[in-house]
């Protein structure tokens, strides 16, 4: 890749940043590529040495606070005329509700994910309670006269414990996966504003 191609791809990737910030980043890379070439590297090698553009862009976006990205996104590219401002205000019932709906959808997705997690943990808890009930009932019945029923109840309790122990590990995995999904979705949402 030529230096020019690298820089234009970098600036395109950073278009969500304030313009002077994106320009400063690009100038920094431009200088380092020039310095590498001055040392005798070919343009191709000098560009390859700083790493893939996509990775650099992703790293910079992740370091940039969400508020900076959002502010840049809503800043008009040129001063707005009075008519545009009036239209914007008149249209607010439309675009404002759409924006709120977008936020609500993201929130709803998070809620669905974490509800599934909650359900897993509740089922596990219920199974564990089944063990306590089974054990207690079994001991009571054994202490009384009906030995067979007591033994059966106690056995059922032990089976439930086994299930709840197994499910515990499933629950843990589900929770970790939900946390992973939440992070991914948050990053995707951030990328919407770039």
């Amino acid at each position: 890749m030529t230096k020019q191609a690298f820089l234009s791809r970098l600036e395109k990737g950073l278009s969500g940043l304030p313009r002077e910030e994106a320009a400063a980043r690009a100038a920094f890379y431009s200088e380092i590529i020039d310095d590498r070439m001055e040392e005798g590297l070919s343009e191709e090698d000098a560009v390859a040495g700083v790493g893939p553009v996509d990775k650099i862009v992703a790293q910079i976006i992740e370091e940039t606070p969400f508020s900076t990205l959002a502010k840049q996104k809503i800043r008009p590219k040129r001063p707005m005329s009075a008519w545009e401002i009036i239209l914007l205000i008149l249209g607010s019932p439309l675009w404002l509700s759409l924006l709120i709906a977008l936020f609500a959808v993201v929130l709803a997705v998070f809620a669905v994910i974490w509800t599934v997690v909650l359900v897993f943990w509740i089922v596990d808890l219920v199974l564990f309670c089944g063990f306590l009930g089974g054990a207690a009932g079994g001991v009571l019945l054994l202490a009384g006269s009906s030995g067979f029923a007591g033994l059966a109840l106690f056995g059922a309790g032990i089976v439930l414990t086994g299930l709840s122990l197994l499910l515990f590990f499933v629950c843990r995995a589900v929770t970790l996966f939900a946390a992973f999904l939440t992070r991914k979705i948050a990053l995707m949402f951030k990328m919407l504003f770039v």
Partner: protein
Amino acid sequence: MDVQLKRGLLDVCVLAAIKDEESYGYKIIKDMQPYVRLSESTLYTILKRLEDAGMLTVRNALHGGRLRKYYRITASGRKRIDDFKADWEEIMAVYRFITKEDRRYD
């Protein structure tokens, strides 16, 4: 290595790279290369942070028909290095205490 610890270390490394004479981006990376590998975007973030904290100043100078940014350390940057050395003395004392315990249980 612990992220916080590494971040503080890298800040001081960059200051050390410009403590004798002013330097520029590529030279800083090259000078640090034998000791620690630093990516360009990480260096940019560190330089920005140190500039905002007043530990270095930046000037543009013409070099071979193009502009190059030179970074110069300030008094508070030098103080940061001295503080780091003092901290490190303490850490080494604790380190010696920790490894002494190790030997006793060997």
